[in-house]
């Protein structure tokens, strides 16, 4: 039921973007943004993986529908890792397991994205963006060198984001961009119920073609 709602939400969002593109008069080019991304786990995800991840990136290819509005595709990559010192765990059958437990989780969101530039002619341009779509997750839970749980799943992801674009010269399309995002990523395994995290990203944005 929850999956159905998420699928409907993605379909609605993609249909909305198509409708926007179909109705609008093209005003801008196609803009590629590549950013380095750090991730800070939040909520219950933090209970299992508390270490911040400094191994990530975020990218988008957005088509300028109007001067303010751009739509397109957003993606990224994040690697989460956490190792716990040796501990005693109780197994489901009542046995005891002593192990160094480690979690290794990789996430690749694949999102339909819409972005609103609040001041397209300014020297510093604030923006908000929203991406909704799928999330390719590789999940590994290890006891020592042994796998306790391994999952590769396509789940749901939503990524609201806000930030700044600072063109290298006034009116230019190439520039520095930085922002923060909240990454909503439901996921189910024995140890985690989501991969929700705050993203802090910075990088470059430049036009692919006029």
């Amino acid at each position, binding site marked *: 039921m929850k999956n159905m709602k998420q699928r409907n939400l993605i379909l609605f969002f993609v249909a909305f973007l198509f409708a926007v593109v179909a109705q609008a008069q093209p005003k801008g080019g196609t803009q590629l943004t590549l950013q380095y991304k750090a991730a800070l786990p939040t909520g219950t995800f933090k209970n299992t993986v508390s270490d911040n991840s400094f*191994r*990530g990136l975020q990218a988008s290819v957005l088509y300028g529908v109007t001067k303010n509005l751009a739509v397109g595709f957003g993606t990224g990559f994040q690697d989460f890792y956490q190792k716990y010192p040796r501990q005693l765990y109780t197994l489901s059958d009542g046995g005891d397991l002593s*192990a*160094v437990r480690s979690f290794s989780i990789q996430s690749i969101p694949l999102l339909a994205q819409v972005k609103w530039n609040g001041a397209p002619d300014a020297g510093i341009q604030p923006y908000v963006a929203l991406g909704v779509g799928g999330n390719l997750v590789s999940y590994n839970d290890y006891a020592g*060198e042994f796998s306790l749980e391994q999952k590769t799943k396509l789940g749901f992801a939503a990524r609201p984001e806000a930030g700044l674009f600072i063109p290298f010269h006034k009116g230019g399309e190439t520039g520095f961009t930085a922002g923060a995002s909240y990454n909503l990523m439901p996921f189910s395994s024995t140890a985690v119920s989501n991969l929700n995290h705050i993203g802090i990203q910075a990088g470059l944005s430049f036009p692919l073609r006029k």
Partner: protein
Amino acid sequence: MLAIAGLVTASSCTKDPMNNLSAEESRIYITNKDNNVNFGNYKTYSIADSVAVIDNNRFAGEQATAVDQQIIAAVKSAMESRGFVRVARSQSPDLGINVSRLYNTSTSVVDLNDYWSGYGGYYDPYYWGYSGYGYGYPSSYALVQSTEAMLSVDLLDLKNASANNSIRVVWNGVARGSGVFTSDAATTGVQALFNQSPYLNTVR
């Protein structure tokens, strides 16, 4: 293309969990016990002076290498520290102890029950004076594993074997992971198995 290249580059930046483990950290210690047993009811034990070698689910003989002797000595030391008294096999011990080295080159999921039931008779029950009896094992668990060696220590209920018509395994300890049969790891492995089983104690 740039984005794809970026993703590939980022994927290669993944922290490899295996490379981030020392040999000691790679090892796991699993113990299981029969929950219906009060270990205070056992006073004496006997242990074989060699180790059973199980290679790919086949009994490959008994050996007593230097490390095997070290393992047996560590088991004796742990048992005696818990108050159990070692006696000869002919003196009707309450507990018998089997120590095994298991080697498995399979890469599939291993259910420990498979190897227990598969070659549960790796020590002929006749060794313990109960010819014709089978071994009864506690419930099992499964872990995915790669090529590896395992150390297994079984505590057998000889005291009640006649009443049970079976030699019940009342406690099992397994040490798995890198270098589990190296000299240092063998002793610390046995100690770890006993340390996580404080209930293994006799009332004196």
